[in-house]
């Protein structure tokens, strides 16, 4: 404590009581932190402001009242009734939900195999999974377009779903594997002695234990599928079958001056992920701590 008082004396030229120092430090910290948070969130706030009433930034700063007078939900009404937004949203939900569910099932068993079973070729597969992360997505996408066209998966949400499952698998398995390696040994052996088969042991013992980690991989799969742009752009050709990202990007040319509508669309596309963040945040943070960190 004595040294702290000396610090402030050197800094400010007079002595402060330790209590005041702690208090001033906390105040300074909170001031810095929360103004940074505000700066980071400004783009989002601005998105909300413009979606309610299109306004120039300097006009808004000088006279927010003008903005408030004209604020309405008209852009959202136009988005819902005069555009394809709802169709695209529905397609995005279909592809995202089905690819997330499928990838969780496939990745649980894959990660279990690499993380807990000892067999030849295990390391090779793990290395291969890491390698696939180094494949350029676009190198896959261009030939995939030709292949899907030939086998009739072009322009279909099923084809897109299969592609998304395959794309998230390597990262999901890599993350979940770390978690499985840290589970105590002989967990499933105990269950198998009780008469369960290997699959039964995985489903009844390993899956419940690893549900937080599985939730994390599910969130990543969800975020990937909801965001994915190139594949949807290349593999879907029909406006009624496309997902939100390519759909909304077509608005830039079409409604280039209707920023309120563009921002309403952007917020509409963001909503499902906001909801996920607020309810499942701890799984993102803890999951990364337990899985991905321990590679």
């Amino acid at each position, binding site marked *: 404590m004595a040294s702290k008082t000396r610090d402030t004396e050197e800094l400010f030229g007079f002595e402060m009581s330790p209590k005041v120092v702690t208090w001033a430090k906390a105040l300074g910290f909170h001031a810095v932190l929360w103004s940074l948070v505000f700066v980071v969130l400004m783009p989002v706030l601005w998105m909300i402001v413009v979606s309610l009433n299109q306004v120039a930034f300097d006009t808004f700063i000088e006279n927010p009242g003008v903005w408030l007078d004209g604020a309405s939900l008209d852009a959202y009404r136009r988005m819902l009734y005069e555009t394809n937004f709802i169709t695209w949203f529905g397609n995005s939900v279909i592809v995202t939900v089905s690819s997330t569910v499928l990838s969780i099932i496939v990745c649980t068993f894959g990660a279990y195999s690499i993380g807990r079973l000892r067999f030849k070729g295990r390391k090779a597969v793990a290395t291969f999974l890491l390698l696939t992360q180094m494949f350029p997505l*676009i190198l896959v996408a261009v030939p995939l377009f030709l292949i899907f066209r030939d086998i009739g998966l072009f322009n279909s949400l099923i084809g897109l779903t299969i592609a998304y499952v395959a794309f998230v698998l390597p990262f999901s398995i890599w993350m979940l594997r770390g978690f499985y390696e840290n589970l105590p040994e002989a967990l499933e052996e105990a269950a198998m002695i009780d008469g369960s088969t290997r699959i039964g042991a995985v489903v009844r013992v390993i899956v419940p234990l690893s549900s937080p980690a599985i939730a994390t991989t599910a969130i990543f799969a969800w975020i990937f599928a909801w965001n994915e742009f190139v594949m949807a752009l290349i593999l879907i050709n029909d406006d009624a079958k496309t997902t939100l990202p390519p759909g909304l990007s077509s608005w830039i040319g079409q409604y280039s001056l209707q920023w309120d509508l563009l921002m309403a669309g952007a917020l509409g596309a963001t909503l499902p992920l906001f909801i996920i963040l607020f309810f499942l945040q701890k799984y993102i943070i803890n999951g990364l701590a337990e899985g991905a960190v321990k590679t």
Partner: protein
Amino acid sequence: MSRSTSATGGITIPEEYQYWLSKESLWGWLFLLPTLAALALISVVPILRGIALSFYEYGGLEEDVFIGLENYARVFALPDFWVVMKNTFVWSFTAVVLMAMVGLGFAILLNRDFKGRSIATTLLLLPWTIPFIAVALNWTLLFNYELGMFNGLLEVFGIQGVAWLGRSRYALFSVTMAYVWRNFPFFMITFLAAMKGIPQDLYEAAKVDGSTRLDLFRHITLPFLQPIGIVTTLLMSLWTLNHFTLVFVMTSGGPGNSSMVLPVYIYRQAFIQNNFGVAAAIAVVMLVIMLGYGMVYLRLYEDEVGGK
């Protein structure tokens, strides 16, 4: 082992084959089967097809014609190609370095006990949950010449604004800013997760020894963050090299080719110019770069990554 011999009815199986009949290996491959099938269909086959395509003149409805290395010769002769390569490198490098720095800064701020910590973490994570398409629309507006926030802020200080996305000097940098804003939270949470794993008594002991805050950071925090930092940097560089949406939506690579990066360039070669052969050749060059980068990176940091 003994069980597998008895199951075959007393016939002795040579030692080296017994392994392959063991249950663990059978289950291992069985559980991996769906994964490997999906990857074969969606990754391996298309990549092989892509590599093959790079040696052919794409004929559309007609037969493709084998032309050897002609596509590669065309690619390296394209003046655009080298501009795009430079842009891709500049964009990935700047973005990753900035994201890591901003992410680390916020992780340090959040890694202490204070009221409102979880709210602050949630709010700072928020950009990462915004889909890239929404980020692209949002930041196109922020960079807008007349309505945009940045020019509005500059005007407050009496500085004349610029057309951020319309000037070749600023376009790529503007897109980079949007990307960094969207993705720094990923670095932030991974660093934060790693910081939670540092034993607090290490700090206490060092403080007793009279270490300064900076010493603590350099000698305790940083070494603990290194392994996760290395993995995150590798993943993030690969993801950034692959990134398509922001460039495609905000600038389409323009003005001219000033903000063009490889994925968008390849897409345009294939689907706008209908040049599938050339597009495949550029994509193969990109594969070589990414594999090379990944391998060298992993080799350099083998120990930190765990060497598994």
